């Protein structure tokens, strides 16, 4: 019964990925013959493998700038998403006012909006004639920057898209902490910040790890947000790959960049799997 999805994944993801690995290592035969027949600047060997394509990409200054931008934007987005989702989830957990419920409704708005549209909305909202600049103008701040086509705009977009998952995951985690524990700490004289720090934080590590890893993997591989809101260069590796593939006609270089992103994402994915396995071991799961 598990065969159909595993089969589909194997044929249409696993096989192409393996072919891509072979292609980046210089093999243009077999499934790569179609792609390689029209491509430019390839590093091809008939036997064995070559790392020439990797060498070329990793010494390309513009790619290195993109890689650097990808890494810091990913880290920054993770940090901001964690901060916002912790703040919203804590606010929800510790108070129950109409305001708090409004906050939870606001935080999941992006679930309802397709990414293409969100990116476009963010582009014009923070753009040169957008809302932020308009408001800043009316309060006398005439030099307020436009974030359209900047890396700041990309961070705003990535955070916007990732917040609902963070809030849902964190709230679910915080809600599973029993009230009795919190009240016991309060009765023993702990202040609210202290209670958060010594009770809620340690009990909510797994959801935090899940939010951080999923956000990281999402931002690393994202295309639409940086493509629509980001600058021409340096931008994230997603749009850069697309450029190398279609504009420069260098699919091999694009694949090398895909491998780099994949390795980074796999590193993050390892943290996610490790945290999950550790928690289910603790819970005494048998499988």
């Amino acid at each position, binding site marked *: 019964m598990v065969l159909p999805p595993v089969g589909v994944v194997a044929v249409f993801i696993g096989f192409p990925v393996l072919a891509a690995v072979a292609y980046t290592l210089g093999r243009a035969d077999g499934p790569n013959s179609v792609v390689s027949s029209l491509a430019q600047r390839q590093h091809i060997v008939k036997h064995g493998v070559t790392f020439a394509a990797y060498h070329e990409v990793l010494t390309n200054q513009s790619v290195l700038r993109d890689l650097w931008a990808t890494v810091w934007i990913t880290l920054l987005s993770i940090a901001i998403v964690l901060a916002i989702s912790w703040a919203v989830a804590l606010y929800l957990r510790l108070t129950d006012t109409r305001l708090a419920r409004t906050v939870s409704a606001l935080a999941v708005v992006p679930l309802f909006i397709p990414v293409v549209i969100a990116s476009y909305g963010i582009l014009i909202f923070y753009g040169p004639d957008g809302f932020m600049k308009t408001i800043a103008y009316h309060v006398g701040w005439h030099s307020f920057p436009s974030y359209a086509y900047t890396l700041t705009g990309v961070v705003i977009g990535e955070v916007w898209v990732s917040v609902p998952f963070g809030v849902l995951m964190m709230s679910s985690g915080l809600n599973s902490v029993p009230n009795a524990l919190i009240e016991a700490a309060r009765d023993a004289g702990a202040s609210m910040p202290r209670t958060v720090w010594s009770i809620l934080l340690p009990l909510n590590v797994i959801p935090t790890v899940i939010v951080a890893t999923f956000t990281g993997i999402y931002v690393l591989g994202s295309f639409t947000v940086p493509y629509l809101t980001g600058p021409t260069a340096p931008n994230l590796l997603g749009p850069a790959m697309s450029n190398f593939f279609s504009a420069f006609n260098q699919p091999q270089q694009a694949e090398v960049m895909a491998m780099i992103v994949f390795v980074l994402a796999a590193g993050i994915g390892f943290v996610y*799997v490790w945290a999950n396995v550790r928690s289910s071991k603790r819970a005494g799961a048998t499988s």
Partner: protein
Amino acid sequence: MSEGIAFGGLRETAAPVERTRGPRRGIGAAAGRLLGALFVLALLVFMVGPIVWLALRAFSGTWQYPQVLPSEWTFRYWRSVFDDPNLGHSIKLSFIFAPVVTVASAAICLPAAYAFSRFNFPGRRVLLISLFATNAFPKIGLYISMAGVFYSLNLMGTFLGVVIVQLIGTIVFMTWIPTAAFSAVPRSLEEAARDVGAGPLRVFLRVTFPLAAPGIFVAMILSFLASFDEAQGTFLVGVPNYVTMPTEMYTLVLNYPEQAAAVFSLLLAIPSVVLMSFARKHVMGGRLAEGFQIR
């Protein structure tokens, strides 16, 4: 939503802590309330602002910086979007692809989800994790090498090719979320039904399936939306024969007046808003938090 999706849950069971402690008084409380209000305001601008701004744009005739609102309102661009045969066609195509992909994905993944939750076969966890790992590979890199495979299978520019490309983005949550939903059905209930004489099929149809239905329902809605919003793969495989709405959006943003893109955005957002409103209760209800924790 097309680029990875994930869900936890806002459980409504946990009572708030503060209620039990009586009202706070004094300057501290007032400052706290003010801080809370500022936080909500900032969140409001950040989360909803871009969407409202975009919606205003769709009805604006003339709107010059730094006016806070348009100086002229119009439906002109709505008419021009509806009159453009290309745009109308892409809307229709999107509504054909999304249901087909959803049904295909359900047919492929739901039996697997059942197996993942009910049978503990060797390699079960590895398979679950590897489904996720494939999702971590950047899509554009995947599409490039997939193009080679598609050319040799004659799938480029075909209906089936587009369905497959969109299907791939739905497999992870079409497997994970229903797996968690099936696992949440207590086995004791199934056994009880069997004890009173129900056959295996009857047990599945009358006990297991109805209890797991909300999870499956959410997975199907997410799958529908993922297909509906998928732009990149469809662009690579489907153009020029099959141009769906989100694919059209890339062109629109670059080539049409801003207002037309805004109108099109609103149209594209309607199915998402409607469908997610149906699924809202279940998504927020926390049934799905387990979908993202591997067991």
